């Protein structure tokens, strides 16, 4: 009988149920979309902001001053201590290794160049890089950490291949496919000379435009520093910086230190890198990191606001729809009371109705919201590769359905209470 009453009420009051259902559907769609975006947005924004480069730099501890300008070290290339390229493997073993999304070691070199068939030597600067290097599960290197670099041609894949900066190419009149001679500068240990192929021309908008970009190993040979790197840029997924993140780990209690260590703050990751690589100093690049945190905070705040507003609106719509639906049925309520039905039994009937509606509409809203999130994601993060992939987050389903239930029950409570407050004898009288 209970299910019969339930079904009949849906069949008969289809329009009212539909209105309330649509309100819940829209509310939960918005909430699902917001929640789905909020949970994936961290990754997405990180990807977006990765455009602005690394968030951690690593350099030898001995370098008290890091005087790098725009990707080229202006200190004499010879006058420094090196990190070992082979030590970079240790990054794979740090606590937050899986959060590392990019690694780019650099080795600046100075040398002399001459055009083919021209004996004159010009001083030139160069940087040895990884270009498309296998590192754990990553393919990483300078292009990945400098996504704003614009390349014409290809990145070097063999020793003997180089990419030249746009200005350098203009000065020497080089095109892709040309060759020129490189000769190690007199100050360098060892001395070599080789002819290299220009496989690409890069435009960066900074000092790199005047430099030669060559495979790290070639640079190491030129400098005579086997396995040496001068500086490493690391890009990592991090938790936005907060007050706790800025604490000096050495001043923390062992317990707090542990907590600090196990949170993916840029500072903690830098700390772990310092631990892992002997003689290394690692620091976060704060500007990018902070803006990332700010954007995240602002966006999630906005999303919560929209979600709350959507649910509130749904609640009011349910309330209005239920008010008329129950008013229409107050004759039934009067009769049920005369049959000895308690207020509780009748309230249960109506709550079961809205509850069923909420579960149904909430589930649909979850599906629609997941779709909306995928669509919005593709819109907001256009050009971000896999942005269009649908995001069905199963844990959201119970959350969203529970929210729908809360909204439906809260929305229908005033009308159910009002209907039950009415005197049954009065209802039966006016029903005449």
């Amino acid at each position, binding site marked *: *009988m209970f299910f019969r009453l339930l079904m009949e009420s849906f069949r008969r009051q289809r329009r009212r149920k539909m209105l309330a259902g649509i309100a819940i559907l829209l509310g939960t769609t918005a909430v699902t979309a917001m929640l789905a975006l909020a949970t994936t947005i961290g990754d997405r924004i990180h990807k977006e902001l990765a455009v602005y480069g690394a968030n951690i730099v690593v350099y030898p501890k001995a370098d008290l001053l890091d005087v790098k300008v725009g990707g080229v070290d202006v200190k004499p290339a010879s006058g420094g201590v090196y990190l070992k390229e082979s030590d970079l493997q240790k990054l794979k073993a740090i606590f937050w290794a899986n959060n590392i999304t990019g690694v780019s070691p650099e080795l600046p070199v100075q040398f002399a160049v001459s055009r083919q068939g021209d004996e004159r030597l010009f001083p030139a600067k160069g940087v040895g890089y990884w270009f498309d290097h296998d590192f754990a599960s990553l393919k990483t290197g300078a292009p990945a950490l400098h996504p704003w670099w614009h390349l014409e041609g290809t990145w070097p894949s063999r020793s003997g291949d180089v990419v030249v900066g746009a200005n350098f190419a203009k000065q020497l009149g080089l095109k892709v496919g040309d060759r020129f001679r490189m000769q190690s500068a007199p100050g360098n240990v060892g001395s070599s000379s080789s002819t290299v192929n220009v496989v690409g021309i890069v435009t960066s908008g900074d000092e790199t435009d005047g430099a030669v970009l060559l495979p790290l190993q070639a640079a190491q040979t030129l400098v005579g520093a086997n396995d040496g790197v001068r500086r490493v840029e690391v890009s990592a997924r991090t938790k936005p910086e907060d007050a706790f993140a800025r604490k000096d780990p050495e001043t923390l209690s062992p317990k707090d230190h542990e907590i600090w260590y196990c949170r993916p703050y840029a500072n903690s990751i830098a700390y772990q890198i310092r631990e892992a690589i002997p003689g290394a100093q690692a620091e976060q690049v704060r500007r990018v990191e902070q803006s990332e945190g700010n954007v995240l905070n602002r966006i999630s705040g906005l999303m919560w606001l929209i979600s709350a507003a959507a649910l509130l609106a749904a609640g009011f719509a349910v309330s209005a729809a239920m008010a008329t639906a129950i008013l229409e049925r107050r*004759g039934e309520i009067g009769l049920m009371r*005369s*049959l*000895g039905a*308690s207020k509780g039994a009748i309230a249960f009937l109506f709550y079961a109705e809205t509850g069923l509606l909420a579960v149904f509409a909430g589930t649909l809203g979850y599906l629609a919201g997941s779709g909306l999130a995928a669509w919005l994601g593709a819109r907001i993060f256009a050009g971000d590769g896999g942005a269009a992939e649908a995001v069905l987050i199963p844990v959201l389903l119970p959350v969203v359905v529970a929210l729908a239930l809360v909204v439906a029950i809260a929305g229908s409570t005033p009308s159910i209470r009002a209907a039950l407050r009415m005197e049954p*004898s009065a209802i039966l009288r006016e029903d005449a």
Partner: protein
Amino acid sequence: MNEAKVQTGPLGGSLSEQTTRPDCAVIALSHVTREYSGHAGVVRALADASFSIVAGEWVAITGPSGSGKSTLVNLIGCLDRPTAGELKIDNVDVASMSATELDRFRADKIGFIFQQFHLIPYLSAVENVMLAQYFHSMTDEAEARAALDKVGLGSRISHLPSELSGGEQQRVCIARALINHPPILLADEPTGNLDAANQTIVAELLQDLHRNGHTIVMVTHDPEMAGLAQRKIALSHGKVFCHPVGGPMVTLRR
């Protein structure tokens, strides 16, 4: 057919124990007043009513429109509570009961028959009867069918109220009122919306119920219907002005 079935009347109402109890006043009013506060001040729908109805009695309540007949019936049916005075149903003071207890009490003790039938339009005849079972305890379709059969609607079981005549609807209403075997039947103008032929059918059903020991309180404007009752209680402007003590049949039963 076993003995219990033989004892049961044609409408399923068993001969109630109350007829043999020493204190037979199944309904007892003492200075009962019911006031409604409306826009135009306080309306005294029932004023200082004192009388009692014994078990198995058939009482007709008469009076002009607005004299408080429905008010009285609703009070007896525990759908409403007195503003003042004491109302005892089955020797229980309704004022002493909580709202929930009153609901339970109503489900157990009272069967309502309305002038407007108050059938649920989207439920079939049998489902309308089962609704009363549902709110009382649990549904039993076979029993509900049997009840409809007894009021002569065996062939109309799955009809919707809109597919039934007024007399048939009223018979569904009677079957519903009886399904939980309540000792008291309250009928507010049960034949008010019926033609002569249907009135006769309903009158016969009520006579049957009376013979089977049901206490019947019936509001009616119809002298012929009122004549079937053992006793008339006349109301005028909320005042009971005529309530002769129990008729011959009650005396007989005592």
